[in-house]
Structures are given as structure tokens and as C-alpha cells.
């Protein structure tokens, strides 16, 4: 089972990348689960054509009990992708990181993986690794590959550096490793050069290069991922290539383990 977590600065396009990657895997015939780990709970909205799933935290708040069945917090989206959102606490109150930990332990109790038997699990994580809760998706038995989404903007690279260092701090633990950078272009000055410099200095690979595209925005306005709506677009192609790279890495990992 391939499990990957997508991190990056807020607003950099993590949900766009994750949802398109999920759609690409689904188009390749894979059974996919996407778990949005952001209080905004909008990670899977385009896979669900605008009709979002009830986030786990909302469920707890509304029902004052834990979900008893997966159907209460899982909804099937494009290509059969199973969509889950952790959601978050009442804004300004509670603890969002704890929300992620709680959601993960609930999903474990509900035997999500045993019942759904996914080929691919994608975690779309809020911004930075700010506390233990936001590191939960990269712990042992969760994601094993991390994608960092960045543009050439200074603050996006700054956040990427923070995430990289946080992961490095966990070197003694059996946590996920950074698989590479996803360059989500904003068409800033010397963008490719800056990201390449960053990648080189951190010994990372740029594993996908997503062009700035009005097409993505056009389809997101219509609650669709570009991979669903325009499969043959050059932009979609980038997501398929990234999906293939991840599958190849997972296959190699399995062979090395043998």
C-alpha cells in the first residue's frame, strides 16, 4: 500500500495537488483514500463535486458521540476515491492537532484500511509541522513518502525548509522520508532557478513541475479536478507522471525490503 503525505505553506496548492494525484491514481485503476487533515476541510471538495463529506470533528460536535460506521464519515468521490476530512475544532478554541490524532485513532478503530483495502492513501496536511498532531500522518504505519509543495516564492521555500528540518529531526524514528518537491508554479521571477537551488542544497529532487494554469482554476470553479475534467491536458499529464513515480518508488521499497 502506497501512503504519501502532502505538506507545504498554506495556500500553496496542497489540496489541488493531492486531489489531482488521487484522481490520477483512480484513473490508473487504483483504489484510493484521501484524508484531508486541515480544519478548513476542503481537501476533497473537488473530488466530491462540491458536495463535501461530513468532517470527523463536525460529526463529533454535532452528534456528541464517536462515529460507529465508516459511512458516517467517508464519502465516495470521483473514480471511487474515498474521501475523509478531519475538520477542526470550533475556530479559536480546542486543538486542531489533537483533532488529527483523534481522527486517526478513530479510523484505526473503524478498521478503515482493513475494510477498504486501498492501494493508495494520501494525506493532505495543513501547512507546517507545527506540533505532534501535524506530524501524525508521517509516523510509522501512516505515510512513508512526503511531498513538499512549493513555488519559487520566498515564504513558500521558507516553509518547505521548516518542513524538511522537522522531518530531519525525526531521523531516529521510523517516520516517513521526503520523496521530493512538487513545484507548483506561481510564475515569480527566477522561479525554477530558486527552487532548483533549494532542491540542490537539501539534496531533494523536484518530482513534479505543475505549470501555472488557468485550466486548473477553471475546473476547480466547477468543482472538478483537472485530471477528471481534462485527462489529456499537459497539466494532468504532470499528475500522472508523479503518480507513476510514487508507485515505482513504493515498488522498489517493497523489493528492497524483501
Amino acid at each position: 500500500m502506497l501512503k504519501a503525505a502532502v505538506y507545504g505553506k498554506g495556500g500553496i496548492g496542497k489540496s489541488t495537488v493531492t486531489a489531482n494525484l488521487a484522481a490520477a491514481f483512480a484513473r490508473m485503476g487504483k483504489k484510493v483514500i484521501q484524508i484531508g487533515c486541515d480544519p478548513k476541510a476542503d481537501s476533497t471538495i473537488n473530488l466530491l463535486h462540491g458536495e463535501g463529506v461530513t468532517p470527523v470533528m463536525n460529526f463529533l460536535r454535532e452528534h456528541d458521540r464517536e462515529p460507529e460506521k465508516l459511512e458516517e464519515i467517508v464519502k465516495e468521490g470521483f473514480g471511487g476515491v474515498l474521501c475523509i476530512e478531519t475538520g477542526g475544532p470550533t475556530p479559536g478554541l480546542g486543538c486542531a492537532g489533537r483533532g488529527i490524532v483523534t481522527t486517526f485513532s478513530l479510523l484505526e478503530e473503524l478498521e478503515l484500511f482493513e475494510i477498504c483495502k486501498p492501494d493508495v492513501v494520501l494525506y493532505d496536511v495543513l501547512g507546517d509541522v507545527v506540533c505532534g498532531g501535524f506530524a501524525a500522518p508521517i509516523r510509522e504505519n501512516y505515510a512513508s513518502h512526503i511531498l513538499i509543495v512549493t513555488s519559487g516564492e520566498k515564504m513558500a521555500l521558507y516553509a518547505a525548509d521548516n518542513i524538511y528540518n522537522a522531518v530531519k529531526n525525526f531521523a531516529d524514528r521510523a517516520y516517513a522520508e521526503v520523496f521530493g518537491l512538487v513545484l507548483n508554479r506561481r510564475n515569480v521571477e527566477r522561479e525554477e532557478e530558486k527552487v532548483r537551488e533549494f532542491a540542490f542544497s537539501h539534496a531533494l529532487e523536484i518530482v513534479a513541475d505543475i505549470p501555472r494554469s488557468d485550466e486548473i482554476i477553471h475546473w476547480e470553479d466547477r468543482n472538478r479536478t483537472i485530471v477528471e475534467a481534462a485527462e489529456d491536458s499537459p497539466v494532468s499529464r504532470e499528475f500522472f507522471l508523479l503518480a507513476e513515480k510514487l508507485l515505482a518508488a513504493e515498488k522498489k521499497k517493497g523489493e528492497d525490503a524483501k
Partner: protein
Amino acid sequence: MKHASRILSVYSSDTAGVASMLYELGGMTVIHDASGCNSTYTTHDEPRWYQMDSMVYISALTENDMILGNDEKLVKDVCRTAKELSPAFIALCASPMPAMTGTDLNAIGEEIREKTLLPVFPIRTNGMDCYLKGASEALLAYLEHFCREDVQKTRELSVNILGATPLDFSVNGTVEAVRKFLMEEGFRVVSCMCKGSSPGEIASAGAAQVNLAVSSCGLAAAEYLWKRFGTPFVAGVPLGIGYAKRLAGELKKAAETGENLYSCLRRHVPDERAKAPVILHEGVFASSLCCALEEDFHTEANVIAPKMLTPFLRKEEDPSPECEDLLAELFAKAGTVFADPFYKAIVPEDVPFVSLPHEAFSGRCFRRENKVLAARKIPDWRKIC
């Protein structure tokens, strides 16, 4: 307001369950919690504390450790202490704060294992669940690490007693009475988990022909030993005379047929309209007492089965009140209430009450009146009340 308790106390926590189950096994149990919580544990949850040494520690977690994520401090402290004391293993468990912030005890345990080369097992606790859950997981983790594969089944009839801790059986001689009874019935007792047996005896658990789960915290271990060694299990405590005999027979049959049996659930549920006695205690114990009343007094009784006391075993018909008000309603309708004396405060005065002290609920408060009911005549409560 749901789940509110105005009068009642709470049961021992999952962390106390871990410490209790592993107390006699020569390991080091570290509860990741604030300093001061030691006294709660030693005063209320562990009657052996002043008689028998054991390496149970609180990590002395501070607010800053929590805010700053000072996991390394815990790793360092545990490694240093382990070097001084050479425990047989290290068990780690979390109290509410580390559980809330998602401290990764699995990863911390791995670091400690690499540094100390000792078996380390983190046990999933949050300091808020019931002791049964912690004790159950601790026993399972211990067996997974230490149960020997290279053992032959004994030729003679033999048994392990699973899930015996002072939290359910106090230190009043009940566990010893169960052991003696089984021996008199012709069983060799391979081990008693985890009271009164050496780590070596427990390591040979696979040699037993049958297992007896005497509490909810022995059930997961029973299933584990069944899967690993094919050892069948029976669930029940040999209370009274008739039921103890029945249970011994069921154990022998299980050893012969290889079939598992939840013996204590083989009891009748009284008619709803009857003002039957109700029993509130740990699930296997309460059900076994029901069976004993049926066998010895021809009296059918109800087991009150809140989820926390019957996490793994209950009868569908058993009422499962999850708050004090609902519990008080059930008590008010009962013919007699068998429960820990702390419950008396919510039992109406005109309902007869039989004291059934439960160490996990009232600690040492009523230990002196905690009578041994195993394999002996149960006093006729109708004459006492």
C-alpha cells in the same frame, strides 16, 4: 448533562492497570505523567506497594516538557534509570496530557530499545480509560515478548490463570484460593498472570492444556494463547460451591475438546418484573457470582454491565447504564444490590445492600470486609441484609 457523576468515584485508570499487571515481572513501568501522580497510584491502586518492590515510575512530566515536546528528556531519563536498575523490560504508557498532544510512544520506545537493547513495549493508554483496558494490553504485550515457543504441552491436566490482579481480586487470598481449588481438582497450575508466578512460569504458558480467564483483562491473552498455541480457554471465576464445581468440569471438557467457553455467561436473566438482585463488579467476576447464586441459592440475578467494566464480554440483555442517574434508577428497582460500598450512597435505604468491595473502585477503604468467595460457601445474604 450526560455521563456526570455527582456522588460516585471513578475506577482506576488504564495506566494503573498496566502497572498492576506487570508489577511482579521484574520490568520497569514508566507512566509518562506529572510528578505527584505517584501517590495516587501507590495509595489507591497498588496494595503490594509497601510489601513488594517493583520498578514503577512516573516520568515527572512538566508543562514546559509538554509545550516544547521534550521527548528526549524522557528517553534520557528512562535509559539512565534502566542502566542503573537493569530491568527485564520497559513498559511505557501515557497519561492524559501526552495522550492529548499525541506523544509518539511507539517512536520513543524504539529509541529506548536501540539505546538500552532491552525489550520495550509502549502500551496504548490515555490515563482516562478503565484499568481493564490497560491491564489487558499490558498482559498481551508481555506475552508477545516473553512467551516461549519451544514448550511441550504437559501430559497431566494443566491450566494458566489469566487476568488476576489485586485491582479485581484484592490481596485477600482470592487468587490463592482459586489456585488451590484448581489443584484440588487435579490441575497443575502452570502460571497465574500476573499474581504469584515467576516470569519463567509465565514464559512456559504455552505448555498448559487449558486457560482460565478470571477477568476481562485475561480475555485478550486467552485469545492470543489460543491462536498461538491452540490452547482453549474458559471464562469464569470459581465462586461458591456449585459454580466452582461446574467451572472445573467445563475446564476439563475444554481441555479435552479444544473448544472455548464463556462459562460465566451461561446464566439466566431474571424476568424484568421480578425484583431480582443486581450485581455490579468487573464483568467476569459479576457474571460468575450470578452463576454462583443460581447454583447455590437457586436465585437468578442481573449483572449490571457498564461498558467500561465489561469491555470484552457481556450478555446482550445485561443493562449497561453509562451514568450515575441511570445506575441509581436500576438500583432503586432491584431486590438486593451487590456492589462496592461506595455505591451505597446512591442505593435507596429500603433496598438491601451487600458489600462487594472492589479495589479498583474504592482502593483499600473496604479491604478488611472483602471476603473470599472463591471455592467456598457464599454467606446467605438474605440473612445478613
